[in-house]
């Protein structure tokens, strides 16, 4: 039997006495610590942070995760600092290249069998970052009103977006690893529809109580998606809002660009009612630069938000464009909305492949065109319109002609359109957008006969009402120039967002802009230094997730909520099952659609919606944001894993205990729960089982915790460095006993599965450790919290900070605090 190699390699003094001190050098810094203390403890005294996953200051070292390895001069091996005693004259280096490379490898290994995800990809993909798993949970439970409240934390118009959104959230849905993605968009439409009518007269479904009136007033130019969204969130913050709209009715592109078969006008009206009922004022048919100027607004209001939209169509730039019968899709759709009718030719061609092109061609069909052809210069795959819409258009009789571009509009003597000359294209090299660039084929010209040409090749904002002298500068793409993070123009009082900043983009992007601009305006109105805010936000976005967490505690809550968390894509892997495809949306038949502007998508039946929502895999981790493995993964940049494709464990989660949830797939066998349960609690609920790769921490015979002596203290969840053990919220803190009615039969003591009741002389409730637990608000969340920023750091900052400090998380902790932790470890906690 040899000594273990580690201890054999380093000479350790064994003088039998624990007294005295030793001096050593850590990263060039001289450190004096008590004899018997480990290198890790010595390093923490001088604020040198050595990463560790399995170290628990209250317990003897385990040296299982091996992340705390350091280089010690004279030792050929890297030594685990948590179990190597500091020795006189030792020279320790904690951050050498060799150490970093080794740590990274260990993290890669850990993550290669960590079948879990940090963040839900749907939420990352959505520009507004709606809390998708949470509201799906509400739908699954039939609690639609609270679902709408949850959703409106990030998106005010679920019924509208549920009809018109291009659904970036569904693209990355992990459900499609086994079958189809969750139909997130249809589901939130269903949820919102259930509440729409009730809300008209009843209580507004708001995410928070609106703040009291602040006395500040904000003017919003343009009552489109961006402006309305800004109005909603500004009203919630208590600021007065007035919207100025050039068109006769509010809604912007929602009303004048999207046909009613996609977005019925009654739905739009009802949903916008929320904004009016919150107290936003509206003035229609007034145009910036014609009826009023920016100066007028600034004289009267504390801030201005420009949500001007992008209503000017791009020109094709070909001869004959000014012919009779050539019309832009925006004008075409707008005229229909304004007048209730629009002229449609017999043979209509639509140029373009986006949403607007689809709206134009399908409207033409409905208005009685004999033949409608869409001409698009790339292939079907590259069409910006959602594939559903293209399919539906074809069902309705629209003909697609792909890989063709207009050369010239042909006219007769009266300058009326008779046809359009087209040229065939082929796909060349990918361009900046990643799509393959169309290249003309020489000599492939041909003529498409038609009597109307509708152009839908993009729009740009009309910025006539603003001028650079007013502080509203323009970019070279003819959009408003704003600060990337605060949406502030050069005039600090003027903010802008939506299509007038983005160029013609989607509704959901405009809504996201409006929301973030509203928060930014709120910060401005409350006197925050906006350049500082912008700088901080830029840093937070660029910096790794965790350094931002440790910094965000210093942030104003208003800034904190603006800081989007960069999604965490630690390269992990999963194996999901439960196949059962979501239901399709019931639709009007193509024949019925051809003549009718009625809504095509009829809405999901309730049973299907609830089932569809329950298909969500909840593929995110409750420990997201507090997970040590995640933090180190980001710190050591484990963003692609060389060990993919190997075996990954898939073990069932254990929700049998009412308070403690276990997900073994997230377990990294650090043994902290095992040790704390054995040494501190004395219950010994856990131990490692199995050998080799299959080693896993488990309860004896995989029994539920309440059957193996668990006292529900939650210490295992508290110490777990990942999301393998987490706690359910406890709604009740304790049960009271009505002693006037109790007859001391003792039945309750007998039947309690958790042994929480005890027969005493006074027959009281014996309530183990709950008062202390109740103080730990960290674990008492209204639901499984997802957003560390808004829910953990703003509402719970003091608690989170305490908890983080206790776990050695806050790197800026002072020496006093750090050594406090060590003292605890030395003295032992009772």
């Amino acid at each position, binding site marked *: *039997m040899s000594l*273990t190699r580690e201890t054999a390699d380093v000479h350790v003094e064994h003088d039998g006495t624990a007294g005295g001190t030793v001096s050593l050098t850590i990263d060039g810094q001289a450190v004096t610590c008590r004899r018997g203390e480990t290198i890790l403890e010595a390093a923490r005294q001088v604020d040198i942070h050595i990463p560790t996953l399995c170290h628990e200051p209250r317990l003897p070292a385990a040296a299982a995760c091996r992340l705390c390895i350091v280089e010690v001069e004279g030792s050929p091996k890297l030594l685990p600092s*948590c*179990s190597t005693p500091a020795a006189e004259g030792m020279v320790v280096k904690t951050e050498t290249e060799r150490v970093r490379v080794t740590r990274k*490898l260990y993290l890669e290994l850990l993550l290669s069998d960590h079948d879990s995800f940090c963040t839900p990809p749907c939420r990352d993909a959505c520009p507004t970052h709606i809390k998708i798993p949470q509201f799906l949970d509400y739908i699954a439970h039939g609690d639609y009103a609270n679902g709408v409240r949850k959703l409106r934390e990030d998106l005010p118009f679920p019924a509208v977006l549920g009809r018109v959104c291009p659904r970036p959230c569904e693209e990355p849905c992990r459900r499609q690893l086994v079958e189809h993605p969750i139909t997130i968009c249809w589901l939130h439409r269903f949820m919102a529809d259930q509440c729409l009518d009730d809300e008209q007269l009843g209580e507004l479904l708001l995410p928070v109580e609106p703040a009291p009136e602040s006395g500040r007033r904000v003017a919003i130019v343009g009552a489109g998606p961006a402006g309305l969204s800004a109005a909603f969130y500004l009203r919630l913050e208590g600021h007065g809002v007035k919207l100025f709209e050039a068109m006769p009715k509010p809604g912007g592109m929602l009303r004048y660009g999207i046909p009613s078969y996609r977005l019925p006008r009654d739905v739009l009206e009802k949903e916008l009612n929320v904004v009016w009922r919150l107290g936003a004022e509206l003035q229609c048919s007034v145009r910036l630069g014609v009826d009023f100027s920016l100066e007028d607004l600034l004289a009267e209001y504390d801030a201005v938000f420009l949500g001007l939209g992008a209503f000017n169509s791009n020109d094709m730039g070909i001869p004959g464009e000014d012919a009779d019968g050539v019309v832009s899709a925006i004008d075409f759709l707008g005229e229909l909305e304004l007048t209730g009718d629009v002229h449609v030719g017999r043979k209509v061609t639509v140029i373009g492949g986006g949403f607007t092109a689809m709206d134009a061609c399908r409207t033409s069909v409905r208005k009685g065109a004999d033949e409608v052809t869409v001409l698009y210069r790339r292939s079907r795959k590259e069409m910006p319109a959602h594939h559903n819409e293209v399919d539906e258009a074809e069902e309705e009789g629209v003909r697609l002609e792909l890989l063709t571009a207009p050369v010239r509009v042909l006219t007769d003597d009266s300058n009326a359109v008779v046809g359009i000359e087209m040229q065939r294209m082929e796909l060349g090299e990918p361009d900046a957008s990643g799509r393959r660039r169309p290249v003309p084929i020489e000599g492939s010209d041909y003529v498409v006969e038609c009597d109307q040409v509708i152009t839908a090749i993009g729009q740009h904002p009309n910025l006539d009402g603003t001028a650079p002298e007013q502080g509203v500068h323009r970019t070279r793409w003819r959009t408003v120039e704003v600060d990337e993070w605060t949406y502030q123009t050069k005039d600090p009082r003027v903010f802008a967002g939506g299509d007038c900043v983005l160029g013609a983009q989607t509704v959901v992007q405009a809504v996201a802009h409006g929301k973030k601009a509203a928060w930014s305006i709120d910060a401005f109105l409350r006197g925050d230094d906006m350049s500082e805010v912008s700088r901080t936000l830029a840093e937070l976005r660029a910096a790794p997730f965790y350094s931002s967490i440790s910094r965000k505690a210093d942030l104003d809550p208003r800034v904190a909520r603006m800081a989007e968390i960069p999604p965490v894509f630690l390269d992990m892997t999963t194996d999901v099952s439960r196949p059962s495809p979501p239901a399709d949306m019931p639709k009007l038949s193509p024949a019925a659609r051809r003549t009718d502007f009625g809504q095509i998508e009829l809405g999901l039946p309730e049973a299907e919606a609830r089932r569809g929502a329950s298909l969500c895999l909840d593929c995110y981790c409750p420990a997201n944001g507090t997970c040590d493995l995640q933090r180190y993964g980001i710190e050591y940049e484990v963003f692609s894993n060389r060990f993919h494709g190997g075996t990954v464990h898939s073990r069932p989660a254990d929700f049998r205990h009412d308070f403690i949830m276990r997900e073994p797939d997230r377990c990294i066998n650090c043994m902290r729960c095992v040790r704390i349960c054995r040494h501190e609690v004395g219950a010994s609920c856990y131990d490692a089982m199995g050998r080799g790769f299959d080693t896993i921490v488990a309860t004896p015979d995989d029994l539920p915790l309440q059957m193996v002596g668990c006292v529900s203290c939650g210490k295992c969840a508290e110490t777990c460095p990942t999301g393998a053990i987490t706690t359910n919220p406890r709604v009740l803190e304790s049960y009271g006993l009505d002693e006037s009615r109790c007859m001391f039969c003792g039945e309750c003591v007998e039947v309690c599965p958790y042994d929480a009741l005890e027969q005493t002389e006074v027959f009281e409730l014996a309530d183990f450790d709950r008062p202390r637990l109740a103080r730990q608000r960290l674990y008492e969340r209204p639901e499984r919290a997802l957003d560390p920023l808004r829910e953990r750091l703003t509402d719970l900052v003091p608690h989170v900070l305490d908890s983080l400090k206790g776990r050695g998380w806050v790197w800026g902790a002072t020496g006093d605090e750090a050594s406090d932790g060590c003292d605890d470890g030395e003295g032992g906690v009772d």
Partner: protein
Amino acid sequence: MTSRADTIQAALRSAFHPDAVAVREGESEVRVCGGASCSGLGGRAIVDAFNDELSRRGIHYDWRVVETGCHGLCGHGPVVVVEPLGVFYPGVTPGVVPEIVETTLVAGRIVERLLYADPESGQKVARLKDLAFHEGQRRVVMALSEEMDPTCIDDYLARGGYRALASVLTEGDPETLIDVVAASGLHGGGGPAAGGASRWRHARAAVADAKYLVCSAVDAEPGAPVDASVAVSVPHQVIEGAAIAAYAVGASYGVVYVPSGHRRAIERLELARAQCRDRGILGADVLASGWRFDLDVAEGDDVVVCRDATALMASLEGHRAVPQSTATTPSGPCLWDRPTVSESAATLAAVPWIVANGVAAYAAAGEGSAHGTRMLMLLGGVRHAGLVEVPEGATLREVIERLGGGPRGDRGLKSILVGGALGSCLPASFLDLHLSAEELRAVGVGPEFGSLVAVDDGTCMVDLARSLLAHSQRESCGKCVPCRLGTRRMLEVLERIVSGQGREDDIDLLEELGQHCAAGTQCDLGSGAADPVLSTLRFFRDEYEAHILEKRCPAGSCPALVTFSIDAERCTGCGDCVPTCPVGAIEGRPDQPHVIDIGGCRRCGACREVCRFDAVTVHSGIAPAVAAPDGRGR
């Protein structure tokens, strides 16, 4: 002689019950090897067959049939030796027992037919001692193994058993005893590395209310049960060694830790312990000397990680067998917080011999400057495989070629695997390496290992590394990340290489993983697990490159990377292979050379087995240009 000495001698004498040994030493005995391999092959049935046959003939009072300890010749079991002729028969079955009784026992003649024949010269070897395998060994630990019944304490006492303990108790100076052990340089097979005696000294010097001795019979590596074999063969010698060591360090209680899989070792040790208590050799008054020492046999976890003393202590204390990182004391890790000395069974079994024969004799057992002997499982492609005890400092050549008889068949020796699944594959050019701690360390092998495996040239080194790693990674206790996860990922890379899916950077990946496993784990299991991979990468890198870059297996053994074809000149068109092929990939007209359809062939090798004309040949590589005779092949 003092009266104390007399008392002890008297106690020793009274412990011996000569009547229990029916036949005197050197008289007529049939010794059936009771080693793990021979008994697994039916040794017990042969003992019964001899007894039945002798009873049937009514001569069972003249002969004693003994199931002895291991003879070592595990590759030729079950082995039977008839004394006093000394003739030995390998591979005995119950069917030939009457013939042996008839010819050898009754008539005193040798059954030529059943003798061991040298495969090359065909020369018959009648006496075990004439076999180079036996001759080249030097037996210290196993000196008495093949002549004693391990279940019989009187056999041991008759051969001087427990005399060493008695003399130690008589002379009574533990310090001197430790000096003797230190001077002997005891560090035989699986023994403590240098500094063993200093651990004894520290334990001796420590002040404590109790001290313990732990004797471990855990395998040195997966599949090399050296210490368990010692316990099975000479259990009393282990107990005597343990008692002497306990006396030296001042321990009053000892535990023999035997993995639960070694049932026979547990049974033999428990029986031996019961006998010792019965005869006053263990207990409150050891050999009436007034010294108290008792010993228990602990049935432990069947895991190699218990080779690490801290893991063994944790297991003994009732916890999971996991190496502990809490600081150990100079005497080694503690059991129940008391000073504890832990040694392997093979080491302790050598102690009585050293005490009885002296330091000089023990030193002389080694070769060159090395002291003592080393116990090894000699395995792999050698003619004589088995459990051997060789002089410390012997060369690999002596062990492999002299004892093992060189590679089996017409194969050449390609590599020597020193240390099994936790060891290193050395190329054949290392044959002159001495089995001494210094030289082994120089080639990256630890001093403790349990087996030598001769690897012949038909073995693919990549696949060997894969199978060794597959073995050892299952043994990980799961504590250290590089061992639990790293070895598995290494295995996956190796699996991908042998199945022809290797990637260009796999060699670098393996090296990186291997080095981190070796450097970043706590115990020797984690570091040893990577050794087969790292050593094959070092010495047989070309094989890895051939697998990955050229998609061929140079040894022609990885099914995914070879091609089968039929040699048209040899093929007679007998057609035997056609129905044998499970996928119907062989076709041909009667009496015409047949052809294997390479696209359909699953490379199972069934046709090669069945072919009487050696016409099926294996080519290294996936699809070389194999020209079929009539141009039909691809």
